[in-house]
């Protein structure tokens, strides 16, 4: 109960902090428009105007991933810069528990990215948000955000260890978009990418959202997404304990 309360308060505080940063607000406002525009023109160029809603949803997923990736990495880097990362790690708690609110908060911001992208797609390009399974869409999006958040926790352990975590964020953004089939179907990628895509929670989360949009079996994809998310959480928690010790050895919790 105390852990749940700590996660709840921690998440509220992290969301409060993100919602008060000018840079974060500007990024959250602009990025969904950019994503929606890129997706729409891509599919128009491919002469597939009937798939516009898929484009908008795919762009929304890209926004969620970018938010979680840069949110987690950026938030931990910011904590290091502010000198609060040491104070978080000094708490007599499991290190994963102190970092988890940060990834949950970025996941929530990610949900906003999906809504904003669909909203801009409707307003600017007239793409009506019509889904094959509207209720399942509402279940698939939180499952997807959860999956991405847990993957974010796994990545957060490297952000705690590395002072230059931003470099890793840049490297991971586009490959995960592609591998998870957020915008372009996985089937167009080389066969060797298949196994890689299968172990990513983002793949199943994106599939669940796409199936809910265009029609298909949503629940199996949600189940896979949640299953891999649990594995990511367990691995992230274990890795965070190891990484916290490594960071204390390498002296990377502080800036210098």
């Amino acid at each position, binding site marked *: 109960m105390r852990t749940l309360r*700590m996660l709840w*308060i921690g998440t509220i505080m992290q969301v409060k902090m993100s919602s008060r940063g000018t840079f974060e607000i500007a990024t959250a406002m602009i990025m969904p428009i950019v994503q929606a525009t890129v997706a729409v023109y891509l599919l128009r160029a491919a002469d597939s105007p009937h798939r516009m809603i898929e484009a908008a949803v795919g762009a929304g997923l890209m926004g969620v991933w970018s938010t979680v990736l840069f949110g987690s990495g950026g938030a931990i880097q910011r904590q290091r810069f502010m*000198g609060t990362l040491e104070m978080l790690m000094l708490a007599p708690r499991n290190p994963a528990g102190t970092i988890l609110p940060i990834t949950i908060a970025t996941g929530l911001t990610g949900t906003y990215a999906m809504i904003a992208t669909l909203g801009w797609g409707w307003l600017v390009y007239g793409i009506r948000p019509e889904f094959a399974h509207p209720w399942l869409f509402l279940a698939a999006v939180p499952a997807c955000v959860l999956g991405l958040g847990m993957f974010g926790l796994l990545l957060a352990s490297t952000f705690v260890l590395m002072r230059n975590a931003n470099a890793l964020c840049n490297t991971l953004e586009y490959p995960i978009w592609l591998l998870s089939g957020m915008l372009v179907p996985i089937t167009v990628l080389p066969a060797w990418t298949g196994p890689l895509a299968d172990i990513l929670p983002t793949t199943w989360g994106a599939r669940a959202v796409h199936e809910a949009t265009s029609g298909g079996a949503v629940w199996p994809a949600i189940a896979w997404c949640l299953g891999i998310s649990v594995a990511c959480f367990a691995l992230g928690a274990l890795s965070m304990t190891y990484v916290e010790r490594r960071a204390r050895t390498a002296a990377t919790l502080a800036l210098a």
Partner: protein
Amino acid sequence: MSDYAIEADGLRRSYRSRTGWLRPQTTVVDAVRGVTFAVGRGELFGLLGPNGAGKTTTIKMLNTLLIPTAGTARVLGHDVVRETREVRKRIGYVFGGDRGLYERLSALDNLRYFAELYGVPAREQKARIGELLELVGLTGREGERVEGYSRGMRQRLHIARGLLHRPEVLFLDEPSIGVDPVAARDLRKTVADLAAGGTTVLLTTHYMAEADELCDRIAVIAGGELRALGTPTELKRHADGRRVVEVEAYGVAPGTVELLQALPGVRGVQIEESGAAQLLTVQSESDVDVQSDVLAALNGVRLGRVSARQPTLEDAYVAIVSGDGGPARESLVAA
């Protein structure tokens, strides 16, 4: 149960840094080189030293933020490497400067968040936070965002945060740095009250007066090594057999310090900028009057106040740090 609140035995810490990709070069800096001391329960213990002496590294090894390269440390009987969580439950950490707080949150939100993180029971949080805000004089300002706080207010909030879970041992790393004199006096009173209430305090500071006023015992650290350890009175003996001449001067030429250092009987020279003036502190053997020689060496320099006085803890500190602390040094370290 251990008699000591803090025990450091042969603590060492090295930092490795790597530069270059094609021909990587590794640099190793030994920040702390085998420090041994013990702090009794309820004691207010000072760790003094110049910048880069290894004070913060020592504190971070004791409060579990850094793992020692060698040696061991225990806090309230718990090993800082193996029993990390047990140590963390019992300690508070406060450091000086602007960092370490959530700027975009209010003081109240900062305290609520850390109360959760540090395991303060929910039903006690409101009363405890109110009590601490009162203690540090922030009642009425707790709803404002920290980014609008002055340095002194931030420092007081730091202290409140460090005390949330009623730690038995409090690590204060230069808490009065950059704080105005009135706020520094309030801070010293708070620290003294905490120690009087039974909290063990390990304080690092640059300010000799602060250490002299507060600490039961002081360890002087320089170059990563412990140079002296004792009560303030014991440490002052490092400057026994000396006299001090202070000269306020305007426009001291480069090389003057070396010139003064070479005068017969002079044991040490310090120069400190003070606005437009420079304050020269010349320590000499007590049986040699160097004042006339010093003034002669400063011929042509506009001078202000000139005075001779008995040595203080600061003079003793300078003597210890400059490695000219007299024969009593080793015996005090062993004490």
